[in-house]
């Protein structure tokens, strides 16, 4: 088995910022805030957050804020909870949450809760349990969970629970590892994990591990993919069933997806690398207790020291 090419990955993450002119980066321009969160969290887990210019990042993040209090995916783009959480997470990494008008950000997020407890992603009304997670995680990091009806929010998430123990994006929708992370994470942060049938969900999740490659897929009969090393694995940890998968084989799968020469991690071996999979690969390895990486919190998807600092240190 190879080793984690940490130095190469750091170089890759830093270099992505500079390749603004490639077609891929233009296509992804509108989600640059997510990209910043992925890249910077990966750097922090690798112990290299100090290579970035904090002031530059913070000032760019603030330029993405809309008058409503929400954040867009890049300067000039419309606000949406997807980027608002990423913005808060990036500032949290640098211990810079105090640059925010917290009340304003919290009001934007809380204002998106609907009567049935669900959350819209923005003013246009798309509803998804991803947005429930985002709202809950974001408000918790801002110590403003009291601005929403948590009980209704939990009940809406529970209405999206399926017979296989998993969760979908709306009631009746199919279980998907990414969606399961969001729902389990939201239930974890609100102290509501007792609503989950841990054995049933745990079996579904552990069967995501593929016998041949050791990688995890996101739904039955789908291909394994490095990003599910995060979505499925973090869920398994939160419900204390992570021992039901084989850690060594998963570590090997993630390491096999590295581009050893140029850095970066891809979805599957020999595919093109990107920041998204680089982050989820590194985060997955952290959850697997790979040596030399900082520990990551399975619910907030931030390094444990960052979460402890924010939540415990009041």
């Amino acid at each position, binding site marked *: 088995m190879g080793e984690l090419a940490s130095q190469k990955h750091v170089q890759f993450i830093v270099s992505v910022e500079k390749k603004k*002119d490639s*077609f891929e980066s233009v296509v992804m321009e*509108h989600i640059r805030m997510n990209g910043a969160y992925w890249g910077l969290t990966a750097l922090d887990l690798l112990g290299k957050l100090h290579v970035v210019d904090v002031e530059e990042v913070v000032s760019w993040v603030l330029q993405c804020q809309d008058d409503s209090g929400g954040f867009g995916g890049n300067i000039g783009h419309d606000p949406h909870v997807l980027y608002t959480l990423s913005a808060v997470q990036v500032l949290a990494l640098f211990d810079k949450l105090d640059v925010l008008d917290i009340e304003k950000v919290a009001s934007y997020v809380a204002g998106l809760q609907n009567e049935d407890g669900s959350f819209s992603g923005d003013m*246009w009304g*798309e509803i998804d349990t991803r947005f429930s997670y985002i709202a809950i995680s974001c408000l918790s990091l801002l110590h403003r969970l009291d601005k929403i009806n948590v009980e209704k929010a939990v009940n809406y998430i529970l209405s999206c629970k399926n017979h296989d123990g998993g969760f979908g994006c709306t009631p009746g929708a199919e279980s998907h590892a990414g969606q399961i992370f969001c729902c389990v994470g939201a239930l974890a942060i609100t102290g509501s994990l007792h609503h989950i049938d841990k054995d049933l969900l745990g079996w579904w999740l552990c069967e995501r591990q593929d016998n041949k490659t050791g990688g995890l897929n996101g739904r039955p009969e789908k291909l394994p993919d490095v990003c599910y090393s995060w979505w499925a694995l973090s869920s398994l940890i*939160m419900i204390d069933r992570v021992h039901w998968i084989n850690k060594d084989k998963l570590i090997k799968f993630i390491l096999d997806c590295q581009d050893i020469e140029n850095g970066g991690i891809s979805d599957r071996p020999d595919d093109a690398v990107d920041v*998204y999979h680089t982050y989820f690969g590194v985060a997955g390895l952290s959850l697997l207790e790979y040596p030399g990486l900082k520990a990551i919190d399975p619910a907030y998807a931030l390094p444990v020291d960052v979460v402890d600092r924010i939540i415990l240190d009041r």
Partner: protein
Amino acid sequence: MHGRPRKAAKPEDEAASAAQAQELRALQSQLLSNHHNKIYTDEAQQLSAKLVQQNPESYTAWNYRKLVVQHNLAQSESDPDSLKSILDQELGLVESALKQNFKSYGAWHHRKWVLSKGHSVLDRELKLLKRFQQSDPRNFHAWNYRRFVAALLNRSEEEELDYTREMIEHNFSNYSAWHNRSVLLCNLMKKKSQGFFPKEKVLNDEYEHVHDAIFTDPDDQSGWFYYLWLLDQTVKTDAPLLVASWPAHESDVILSRNRRSDDSSFSPFDSFHSDSGTIPLILYFNQAVEGVNSSTITIESSFCTKDLNWKPLLQNNSQLSQVWVTHIKFPDVKPHSSEAYQLKISVGQSQGIISASGIHYSHPTQLAFKVCLRPIETEPATKKGGHRILWRDENFHMYQPQSQEPDEVVPIDQLIINDHEPTASNWRAETIANEIALFRELSELNCKIGKLTLARLLTAHDVILSPRTSKMAHSEEVLELYTDLIKLDPLHSQYYKDEHSLVLLQKVTSNRESLLNHCFSYKNLASSSIGNDICLRLSNLSLSRMGSIEKLLWVQMLDLSHNELHSIEGLEAMQLLSCLNLSNNKLGSLTALGPLRLLKSLEVLDISYNEIGSHTIDRTRYLCSTPLSHTEETSWNSDEIVTGGASVKDNWEAVLIFKSMSLTQLAIVGNAISGENFKSLLVKLVPTLEWLDGDKLH
């Protein structure tokens, strides 16, 4: 980001890519500029159309399109034809964007948004979906959209159910279709729609249906979870039921008010010590319920037991719990006389106990037991801590039932209070028997799902057929199946190991003889105390998980050492526990000890030689009550005083866990966390502590 091959870019590709990028960038900045300046000219509209087709993920462009549609609708002055043409044109645009990227959240939502304006022909949507779903039958956006359109069209659930059948018959390897089928069927059965009642008939058909999938390709997971759902529908009882209690029905509890009583004339299984003359009353249900309180649980006795405080045994603030406890205080009687009390507990006489799914407790149950208060001995009371408990083999002796018949010693039958629904069980038993016969064949082919399903079926069979005695007639066979599976599917060996542990514990607790084999009298020969303690020793059994707790509510001294436990979830129900040995297990963190915080009688704890402090990732971080899950307040300042300077923030888990315990003995040696600093913190956190790692503290 998915499925693109990794290759070094050729110079000519790079040039082409740069040109493309430049064009897209121009489009994007022009769109943002139009958007910010609220420009909705034809030219601006066309530019946005071009952009969403080139990059369907550009959410701001879709938002702009919504403003365009609103602008155009306002201009059309409610002329129905032009309204319709504006919306149709928009649907056409979404369709071509979806062809570019079938997985674009923005495009799918835009389509829903347009449809919600009305005026569109919905039948066309179903045709479109059919085309999309043929090319990608698992696309979850398309399935979600289908549910949305079906609801708008008021299509019947029967029609949609037929559609899932069609999809499955075309190719059974379609988890999405099976999933949708389970949702639809569940609704139809709940509504008792025509043809979907009684559910027995429906389930039989579905078993047939899913057999085709599983037996055609047993390795394909598409039918696995559907089958498990069917099995659950067959076996489970929706109604909340009481399954066990302490004190058990018809038991005689001996309550002594000082510690060591050497009177061995009564059964030690039912004797309980309490200085204050208080006993816990534990109710164990088959599922989590709420509404357990002094109006739903009534107690008849010769003394006042009004307004008892019922508490859910949970590690969070929920009021939904499978196990509930209250404490009954007996009247103070003269120290030297004994007194017997009859208590009658009625559960669910008045409505209010209710399950998570909203089903009321409808099997009113009565339990009656007798509590005999022993006279207080004259000799001074000695705390257990005064005599150190030594978990050495020589201090344990096979329990020998004395004056009484062994039958009456271990309160095992009395624990199971309810058996019920005899009528439905015929069909259930028959169905399970048929399935067992089928899966036996598959199991013999060394097939994983065959063996696993057979093990689950046999366990279900035992539970259904003998709810009262829980004879577990098939436990040997089930244990063997899990042993086979560990070898057959090593990737998931720990899952099978956990299941193996649960079945083993069911077996051990299934009858009096096997349980008696694990019961020992504890006598510390080195000390002068003559104990009358019974210890349940479940050590050296390779247990990776605890179970069958409802059979063990009476246990006060428990030895679980030398197993492979990494979790003690469920142990919080054992409210009588005063001595617990968890040494030489795999407990990985302090938060894993969370259940112990609810054991108010616990005095002696051995957690030596575990893995506490060896892991960077804490798997019970969110199952334990902590500030991270908003189930515990932080009050570090007052804790700072308790710990006398040691950093509370760096040791917050230890503070949370140990602060609420009143241990007299603790062993923690052999854990990475257990250094001198940590031990001195423990001494401050647990002022009642007399022994730490075998050393007398004061």
